[in-house]
């Protein structure tokens, strides 16, 4: 996995707290921070994408806006899921007609 250096300056108080956690859990301080950071980033990313997908589904934001905000890949995936759902709904209506007869 490729990595990139992220330079952070943290307070002495935070370092002390990390030392307490590291000592009690018997884990490497940097590794623990990396794990927690990954968890938080994932959680926040999902939360924001949920909000964005809600706005998109309700027509309050366009594909172009999403592209500008976070890039083409996610914008295209949202568009793809939307189109497939609309196709599924159309097929459901056709099937409903057959069942109704």
């Amino acid at each position: 996995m490729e990595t990139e250096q992220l330079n952070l300056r943290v307070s002495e108080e935070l370092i002390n707290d990390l030392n307490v956690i590291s000592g009690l859990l018997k884990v490497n301080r940097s590794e623990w921070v990396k794990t927690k950071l990954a968890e938080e980033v994932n959680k926040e990313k999902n939360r924001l994408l949920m909000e964005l997908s809600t706005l998109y589904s309700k027509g309050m934001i366009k594909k172009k806006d999403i592209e500008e905000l976070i890039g083409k890949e996610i914008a295209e995936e949202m568009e793809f899921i939307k189109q497939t759902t609309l196709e599924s709904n159309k097929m459901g209506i056709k099937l409903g007609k057959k069942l109704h007869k």
Partner: protein
Amino acid sequence: MAKNSINEPYILDTSALLTLESASLLEQVLILFSIITTPRVIKELKEFANYEDTLGRIAKRILKEEKKFSLKNQSINNKLEHVSETDEELYNLALKENLVLITDDIKLTRHTTHKIKRVFSTMFLIAFFKAGMLTKEEVLEKLELMRNIRNWKDNIIYLLTKQELEKSTVFQ
């Protein structure tokens, strides 16, 4: 909710089976349609059933209906990149039999674009509502059960299906 079988065949993957059973719709789907799947899908369900969590319990209920499925072995003649062998098998089956694949797996749906016809399992919910087999209240309740929102992708399916159901009326 009783209706006569129209016996139309559909291929279902693991994700679709789990979603439909989560809303107690599979029984009706099995009565009305001819449901085809592969032994590998059954194997995947058995793996889910090894766990005592929600999906494990749903998988156990599906496996009780195993005899009602038409199981077909399918060789992988046309390769599909980035998906599992189970998915490749289902894709080949849909291609060979020229049937619609019902799946809620976005990755599989994406990689089969323009190759086979595939739709999300919410199609059945819309159909049952339009045919007057379920009331609006019932379908919206079932959609909540199927929702299983784990990520933004499911969120789009849920919201757009809900919009369709809210504006829809039953065929007269």
